[in-house]
């Protein structure tokens, strides 16, 4: 810290007992000067306070950017990937397991048609998920994916997924929802099993049905 020289100066001045030379924060300071100096310090500190408040909200997008870049947190991309003709790595198989669950206040039935499939990295896989709305009201659902192990989230590319859209079902209706994906051949060799979990949330209260239809048709 830069305070050390000041301290030495203070000591030296004290030793020579010449009080005039002491570095002094408030000697010769008039009331007006002190008030001006205080106002300046306060301004700086208020700037820090406002900056930190902004930072706390900036943490929200920063967190997502950080998770996207590192693939931490098991959050796969919520954008459709484009299948490039990658070389299929036939030397190994990856087992992809599917887990489905519904949030506590969500009445739908929701299950994958197969519990797991085995694919070569680079090879397209396709799975269908069955949903039924047994309740007596129309519900709009949103599926949120999560990948385990979390670091594998970067390597699972979905070209089509029901989780990219809101899913409306009328009372008593049922549907099969498709999901197409391929595993990036760059997937680290030590990962042989991937678990893809979908949680279904009732988001009827958040969105207007008309908006969903318009969005999903576009």
């Amino acid at each position, binding site marked *: 810290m830069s305070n050390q020289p000041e301290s030495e100066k203070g000591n030296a001045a004290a030793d020579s007992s010449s009080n005039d030379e002491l570095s002094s924060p408030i000697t010769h300071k008039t009331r007006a000067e002190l*008030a001006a100096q*205080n106002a300046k310090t306060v301004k700086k500190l208020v700037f820090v306070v406002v900056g930190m408040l902004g930072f706390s909200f900036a*943490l929200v997008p920063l967190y997502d950017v950080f998770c996207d870049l590192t693939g931490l947190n098991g959050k796969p991309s919520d954008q459709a990937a484009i299948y490039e003709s990658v070389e299929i790595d036939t030397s190994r198989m990856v087992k992809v397991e599917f887990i489905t669950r519904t949030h506590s206040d969500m009445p739908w039935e929701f299950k994958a048609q197969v519990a797991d499939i085995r694919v070569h990295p680079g090879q397209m896989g396709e799975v269908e998920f069955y949903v039924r709305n047994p309740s007596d009201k129309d519900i709009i659902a949103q599926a949120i994916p999560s990948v385990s192990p979390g670091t594998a989230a970067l390597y699972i590319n979905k070209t089509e997924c029901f989780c990219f859209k809101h899913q409306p079902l009328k009372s008593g209706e049922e549907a099969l929802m498709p999901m197409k994906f391929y595993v990036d051949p760059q997937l680290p060799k030590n990962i042989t099993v991937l678990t893809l979990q979908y949680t279904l949330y009732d988001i009827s209260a958040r969105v207007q049905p008309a908006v969903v239809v318009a969005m999903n048709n576009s």
Partner: protein
Amino acid sequence: MSTETIHDTPASDDGHDAHHDHHIPKGLMRWVLTTNHKDIGTLYLWFAFIMFLVGGAMAMVIRAELFQPGLQIVDPHFFNQMTTVHGLIMVFGAVMPAFTGLANWLVPMMIGAPDMALPRMNNWSFWILPFAFLILLGSLFMDGGGPAFGWTFYAPLSTTYSGDSTALFVFSVHIMGASSIMGAINVVVTILNMRAPGMTYMKMPLFVWTWLITAFLLIAVMPVLAGAVTMVLTDKFFGTSFFDAAGGGDPVMFQHIFWFFGHPEVYIMILPAFGIISAIVPTFSRKKLFGYASMVYATASIALLSFIVWAHHMFTTGMPVAAEMFFMFATMIISVPTGVKVFNWVATMWRGSLSFEVPMMFAIAFIVLFTIGGLSGLMLAIVPVDFQYHDTYFVVAHFHYVLVTGAVFSIMAAVYYWLPKWTGKMFDITLAKWHFWCSLVSVNVLFFPMHFVGLAGMPRRIPDYALQFADFNKWISIGGFAFGLSQLIFLVLIIKACKKIGEPVSDQVWEGAEGLEWEIPSPAPYHTFETPPVIK
């Protein structure tokens, strides 16, 4: 900005302490309108003490329910409100205001300033505080009860599963935050601009140093807390999805934001304690503090490190091993500067001419018991064992050792140390010794067995427990009631002291006490250092 207590020309020697005194209004309005740092310090300290008793009463409810297994006294929802509000009150209502009160009383006297730099803001930062806690306590009487999601208000507990009182909780935290930020700005401005001639940074008493660093921590992280509670408010009432996965948010992100505030917060509650102990130990050892400069650097490094360890509260949320390793080692590094401090206190006592007055007894208890709390913290920092200790009574034992026998004991030590200077009379030493020994024994009966039940797997924040924990919990509760009652001795002692009952003391009060505050008369006059002292 009122600086009416400052002379235009500090060099003039004709400053009369008395000629300001006729301005002081009498009765209640004196306290409502006061801009005097000593009055505001007193207000803060009384407020903190009252909140300490209120939060303590809630702890008594918790311990009464846990006296035996099963549900007998309160229903689980009310139990959750008690654990939540107990935590909030003790952190924001007792420990932090007590330190702010001590800063108000002592910082100007220690640096030779006539008052705080911003006296009117000082009045505001105190007087909004009672309203914050009235709102918080009032929420307990609402339909559906008060906040019941723990003082850490994790989403989705606070966003999806909480009651309407969450809005009141959020507003009261906003007010507490505003109060803390204003108080911190005041402390920083005072220390940077108002030091007496010759009071260079490296001559400042350590209490001033630790408070300067604490104030910077407050300014940095209280706005983050304000942001976090605002996000909870909008998630709950205005349909945003900061922490709701259904809308693209993430509940784990809440924990990151909260602990980015929360970890510096725990150092906010302990750094001023380090300053207090660094003042008391040299006095009663009749030696200079060992390693003054290393104390300053240790405090600064603890403050800086506190920003990069937050995720050690979240090891069990599922992190990559690399992140767990980083946060584990960063946390362990903090024990190095903390160890420097403990070493310096012990080295100060080494071959000193020790005497064991009450402040010194509390200071020594602090050093020993805070170190126990630090050691259990080090155990919790180890990732693989944290998976077992997480959310058990071991954690409860850890943070009560650092906060009760750490922060609270240091505040009591400070009160006993400076009380004679404030009142001009020696406090009742017999009562003080009773208070010390009763507190010391009961606090260990209260918190030490929590280590054992925690290691055996008893979860925290649950109103019931498995039968095998019954005996230990009975002892813990007995210790809790005894510790609670012991504080009534303190209350009686403080009331006696405020009534100015006791032997008059000298200006220096304690043989061996050094510093500007011991050079002014006892009791400290209403206005001090209107003419700045010259520091030798």
